[in-house]
Structure formats: structure tokens, C-alpha cells
């Protein structure tokens, strides 16, 4: 039970830290960014929102991939564990 909780705690912590780092990136890097060649304030703001939205989507994608890999890896190793004693018995 503790192992299952630990798995998720690590994922939750990772996702939370990523969120905080993402917010810092938006605040410190993306928002103050001056894009050379673009004089229109509206276009510049839209680009910044698009980059921030892309960052959020990347965050969600990363979150999904971590859990997907974790799930199939755990399930397969569990199935292997369940099959291996049976195999040994068959060989015996």
C-alpha cells in the first residue's frame, strides 16, 4: 500500500514542482520578452499567451506520459511475477 502511495506522491510532487517552475518561467521569461520585429502590442501579447498555453499543454502531456509509462511498466512486471512461479512448476 505504501509503495502505491509513494508512486503517486512522486508524480504529484513532480507535477507540482513543474507547475511552479512553469509559472516562474511565464513570469520571468515569457512576459518580459521583447520580440524584435513585432511592433503591434496585441500580436506580441497573443504570441506570449500562445507560448504560455504551449507550456501548459507540454506540462499536461508530460504528466500523462509519466503515468502511462508507470502504469504499463507496473502491470507488465506484475503479470511477469504472476506467471513466473507457474512456469517453474510446469518445468518441474
Amino acid at each position, binding site marked *: *500500500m505504501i*509503495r*502505491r*502511495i509513494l*508512486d*503517486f*506522491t512522486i*508524480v*504529484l*510532487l513532480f*507535477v*507540482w514542482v513543474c*507547475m*511552479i517552475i512553469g*509559472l*516562474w518561467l*511565464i*513570469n520571468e521569461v515569457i512576459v518580459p520578452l521583447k520580440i524584435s520585429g513585432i511592433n503591434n502590442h496585441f500580436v506580441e501579447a497573443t504570441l506570449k499567451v500562445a507560448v504560455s498555453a504551449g507550456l501548459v499543454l507540454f506540462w*499536461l502531456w508530460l*504528466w*500523462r506520459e509519466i*503515468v*502511462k509509462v*508507470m*502504469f504499463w511498466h*507496473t*502491470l507488465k512486471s*506484475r*503479470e511477469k511475477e504472476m506467471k513466473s512461479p507457474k512456469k517453474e512448476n510446469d518445468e518441474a
Partner: protein
Amino acid sequence: MIAELAALTVGFVVSLLTMPLVMKFMKMMGMVGIDVHKKDRPSIPEMGGVAVLVGLTASVLLVMFLMPEKVRLLMSFLSSALIAGIVGAVDDLRPLNARIKPLLTVFSGIPILLLGTYNPRGPIFPIIGQTRLTIVYPLIILIAMAVTSNAVNMMDPFNGTMSGTCTVITIVMILSSLILGREDGLLLSMCILGPLVVLYLFNRYPAKVFSGDVGSLSIGAALGAIAILSRLEAVAVVAFAPQIMNAFYGLSTIGRLYERREVSRPTVILEDGRLMASSDPHAPITLARVILARGPLHEREAAQIFIILSIISGILAIFTAYLIRVTT
């Protein structure tokens, strides 16, 4: 503080008195659901969420009487929960299409917009502080209300998981409101806490009642409304992490909005009564399935893990509230 404590007490007592009546009525009307995770598959009364809505309405009406200056805030909060509750009740009585239901829950955000009880500038995030999303924020509110209500609705795989995790989220909202000095958040959370505790007492393993969509959608909408009305959006996103995980994994594996009855079951029941993750590649990867991937568990243990995860994300949410306080 008197109004908050009165809201908590009235909500709890009214729900406690209403729940047995609702259960009796639902049984009489044949509104029962099969508890599929039990070997003997018992019939359990559905729509226990009606008692939650009755308790919530009673506590909100009491606070309206005690604090007339908060009528607009309380009206938008209660209307949001009631609209989602009506959608849930319709779905309980006559199952709605998987695409129509989320669309209808969008309407639960309308009272907040019409009564203008939200922060017009947008949400507050740690580090960033007050955002300026004046134009898109009303649209975000509508989407957020649909997301919270449906995410809570999807997080009901085992006895007591929905009611237990939502009780944890409400307590987190109360603590975050205290950290950030959000009086409205404290007041609204106290209104829903009493009915939620009652639902948990009746819905925990082995369940005596199911909340039904009337309960889960209205509770989700109420929590979403608390986050918006009390400017606790960032805290809520972190507190809702298990619900977001569950809904997001399910949707991303199926690739579209779905109803539980339309897809393969993510879990299977063993002969000894324990639950195991299904290895069917077409079944959605839900939080329950991920938890059970490490091996079979009894329903009570699996439900406990859900609540522990909610407590962990709750701790992170409280830390987020603290970050908002120190960085903005």
C-alpha cells in the same frame, strides 16, 4: 465566525435528517444501483446527493438570513450547485449522452457571470500574482465549472471515494481561506462541509447509499464555485490533482468523452472479492486502474488510497496558498 459555524451545523443536521428519508424514497421508487465491486452485488439506493442539496440549501438560506450583505454571493453559489444538480438528476433518471452532459454543466457557471460575483481581472497564481485575463476569464469560468463537476463525477469508482476526496478538498479550501484571509471562501466551504460529511458517513465502505450524478455534479460545481468566488483557483487546481489525473487519463486513453457504461471496465473482481486492474488495452487508464496495477486490493483499501492521495495533494494545495501569500 458564528455564521460559519451555524452554516456547518445546519448543513450537517439537515442532511443527516434528510438522508434516511431520501434512501427510503429511492428504494420505494426502485431507484437502486448495483454495487458491482461486491461479490453479492447488493442493491443500493441511488441519488443520495439529493440530501446534500437539501442540506446545502438550508445552510445557504440561513447564512443569507444572518448576513444579508452576502446574498448575491450566496445566490450565485447555490444556483451553480442547483443547476449542476438538476443536470445530474436528469442524468440519473434518464441517462444523457456523454457529450451533452458536460455541455449542460457549463450552464452552472452562468449565475456567477450574471450576478457578477467573480473577480473580473482573473485568477491569482503564486509567483505571477494577479493576472489580467479580463476578456477570457468569463469563458474560463464556464469551462472550469464543467471541468470540476465532471471531474468529481468521474472520481466515483469505489465506495466513499467521491465523498471522501471532496470532503478533503473542502477542508483544504477552509485552511487556504484562513491562510489567505478569504472570508467568502471560509463561509461557502462551511456551507458544503456539513452535507459532505453526512454523505461520506453513508457512502463510505460498505456504502448504504450512492450519491448519483445529482450529488457528484452538484458537489463538483459547488467546489468549483468556491474556487472562483473566493479567488482560490490555483489552490483548487492543486487540490483537484487526483480528480484531474483520473479524468485526464481516462479521456486521453479513450480519445473522447465517454460514459462508464460505454467502455470496458478498468477493474475486474477476483473470486476472493479483491479488485484487480484490467489488462484490456481498450479500457480507460483511470486512477483506480493505476492504483490496482501493483496488485489486487480490497475495495476498502483502494478507497483509502484515494483519500490519502487527496490528502497529499491537499497538503501541496495548502503550500500553494502559502506561496500565494508570500510571493504576491
